[in-house]
């Protein structure tokens, strides 16, 4: 078959099984868009800003496990995509971004809408390609998808000059059946000797904790993790990125750990004698001061990425490989040793953890107080959303206090249901990522928990939601200020609130969303909260935006004491620390 470059590109994406392309057209991508117009297998979603395209593709990828695909033009189209690419990179999300480029003979001449996309994106991609000839396009697409979705996943950029998509020049097309990159060989199966050492460590532990992160979700290893713990009964904590990989309503679940982790999760980690770190990378929001991290723990680290292991915290046993394969290997070995598991051995440890939880655990019943004497608590909003959505919605969030409240109070029982920018912390992520999730799962409930600061960073995508009829439920936890910045200013800068307020210039969100054809609900009193949230969920065919005015003085707790604190050093409420 003979095809032109633009058709080779699009046909390759179809052969790759792509359902949606999130993008925005422009000069250098015009030939490609003409090719998109002439096919029916994939749907192009026209966003309102390229950042929205990357986040939507990212949300699609996080929810489905399949790579998200983005199409942008050169210059500003490419640079606008950068924040979303960096977001995906930090959280190891598979994504393929295709950027148009000026014609080959113009490269390097400062041509109209020329920018060095490969150079700009280099530090925030897993890999990138410049297309140098039409006959290489199919091979490059194949390699890009392979790299994005294997090993430690991540975004891949393909930059393609306009002349190489010219519809007049035809070339042989055959999509490669397989791919083999001789310099790329991510680990898959763990070494047996390491697995044997891990099993011994498990059998000998008195105060163990499983600390599972986003890598466990990327590797689709939730089932294996739950199976492992059905044999060994360890307490389990999840990172912000790992929430849902172990059921939050299981009695062995401790909640999230780290900066705003639960008291019992942080105390268990600090006092552990064995930590099984599974697809987690000991980032600074987890460890607090690394020198003071879990002083008595033996560290077992499961990861697909060599460079993550012993980067921050030295591992005693390293298990390289896909987490799924490693856990399968552990499970089959431990099944032969069931008689050697002494369940009473860790009973005292479970009692200790129960005591911690009892003393300073989170209060999940705040929503029951519906009196109008006090302002609405943001935590109670999340609790109402949890109950009204029956605990099984996809929840996306933005970044800040509302994100932490969502992570603390919505109990995620399944992986891929909690979608947030954990690594880069990108405000503006919530709404566009919810679009990607809703397109992937049109029959599922998709909730975006956001704040009045974050939502305004990508609010233009409300228009995209109306074009494609995406009935997302958006809950705007409105505290009239940049709450997390304000919290730090309260705690570390004697309450000097520098540049965190815009109270007098906020839009009327209800009126704003209605101008896009959506439904707006404004809630200012506790007594209106339950009905308002239930009403939002009862509307099935429309996007509903619920603007909830909450107590502007509320802080997120627990919060690790920094600098120089350990995981046992936490603020538990205003002025009260451990």
């Amino acid at each position, binding site marked *: 078959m003979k095809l032109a470059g633009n058709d080779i590109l699009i046909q390759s994406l179809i052969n790759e099984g792509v359902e949606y392309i999130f993008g925005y057209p422009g000069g250098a991508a015009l030939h490609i868009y003409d090719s998109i117009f002439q096919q029916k297998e994939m749907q192009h979603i026209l966003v309102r800003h390229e950042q929205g395209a990357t986040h939507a593709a990212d949300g699609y990828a996080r929810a489905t496990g399949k790579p998200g695909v983005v199409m942008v033009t050169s210059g500003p189209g490419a640079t606008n995509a950068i924040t979303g690419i960096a977001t995906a990179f930090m959280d190891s999300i598979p994504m393929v971004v295709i950027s148009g480029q000026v014609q080959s003979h113009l490269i390097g001449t400062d041509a109209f809408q020329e920018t060095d996309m*490969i*150079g700009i994106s280099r530090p925030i991609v897993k*890999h990138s390609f410049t297309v140098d000839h039409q006959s290489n396009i199919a091979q490059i697409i194949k390699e890009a998808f392979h790299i994005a979705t294997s090993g430690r996943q991540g975004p891949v950029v393909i930059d393609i000059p306009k002349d190489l998509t010219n519809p007049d020049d035809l070339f042989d097309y055959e999509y490669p059946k397989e791919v083999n*990159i001789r310099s790329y*060989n991510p680990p898959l199966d763990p070494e047996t000797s390491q697995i044997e050492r891990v099993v011994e460590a498990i059998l000998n532990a008195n105060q163990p904790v499983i600390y599972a992160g986003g890598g466990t979700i990327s590797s689709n290893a939730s089932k294996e993790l739950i199976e492992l713990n059905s044999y060994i009964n360890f307490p389990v904590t999840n990172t912000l990125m790992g929430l849902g990989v172990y059921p939050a309503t299981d009695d062995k679940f401790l909640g999230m750990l780290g900066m705003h982790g639960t008291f019992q999760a942080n105390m268990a980690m600090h006092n552990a004698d064995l930590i099984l770190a599974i697809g987690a990378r000991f980032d600074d929001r987890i460890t607090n001061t690394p020198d003071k991290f879990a002083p008595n723990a033996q560290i077992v680290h499961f990861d697909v*990425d*060599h460079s993550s292991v012993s980067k921050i915290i030295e591992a005693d046993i390293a298990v390289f490989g896909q987490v799924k394969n490693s856990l399968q290997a552990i499970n089959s070995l431990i099944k032969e040793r069931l008689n050697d598991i002494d369940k009473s051995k860790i009973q005292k440890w479970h009692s200790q953890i129960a005591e911690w939880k009892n003393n300073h655990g989170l209060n999940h019943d705040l929503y029951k107080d519906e009196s109008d004497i006090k302002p609405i608590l943001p935590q109670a909003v999340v609790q109402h959303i949890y109950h009204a959505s029956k605990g099984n919605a996809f929840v996306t969030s933005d970044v800040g206090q509302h994100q932490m409240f969502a992570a603390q109070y919505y109990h995620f029982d399944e992986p891929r249901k909690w979608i947030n920018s954990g690594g880069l912390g990108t405000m503006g992520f919530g709404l566009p990522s919810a679009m990607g999730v809703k397109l992937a799962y049109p029959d599922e409930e998709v909730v975006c928990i956001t704040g009045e600061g974050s939502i305004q960073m990508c609010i233009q995508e409300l228009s995209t939601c109306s074009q494609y009829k995406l009935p997302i439920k958006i809950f705007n936890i409105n505290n009239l200020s940049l709450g997390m910045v304000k919290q730090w200013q309260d705690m570390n800068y004697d309450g000097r609130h520098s540049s965190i307020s815009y109270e007098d210039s906020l839009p009327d969100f209800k009126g704003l969303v209605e101008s896009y054809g959506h439904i707006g609900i404004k809630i200012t009193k506790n007594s209106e909260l339950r009905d308002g949230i239930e009403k939002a969920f009862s509307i099935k065919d429309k996007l509903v935006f619920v603007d909830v005015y909450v107590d502007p003085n509320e802080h997120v707790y627990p919060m690790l004491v920094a600098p120089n604190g350990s995981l046992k050093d936490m603020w538990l409420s205003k002025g009260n620390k451990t």
Partner: protein
Amino acid sequence: MIERQLTLIMENKPGALARVVGLFHQRGYNIDSLHVDPIDDFTQYKFIEDELNIKFSMGEVSRLIIKTTVGDALMRQILRQINKLIEVIAVSDNESTYLKGILRDENLL
């Protein structure tokens, strides 16, 4: 902190060198010296061809020699970060080698 030498064998493709140099800056490491040339005599690297079951042809692969002054832990981290670059076939410091992603306990390059 001592000066160490890293040797890389990598695909001779446009942009590959920029990825290595960029990585040093991005991760906060310093390059004391850098030497790069295409490999024209593969005798010394036949074991790589055997290992990968391929035959290199002229101009296809480059050798980079980088000198940097760092401590032990950082050296290991640099080695692992370089090994992650898709176009790097093998990388070695004084003590160990990553060959197509797999760690060996000796300097093979």
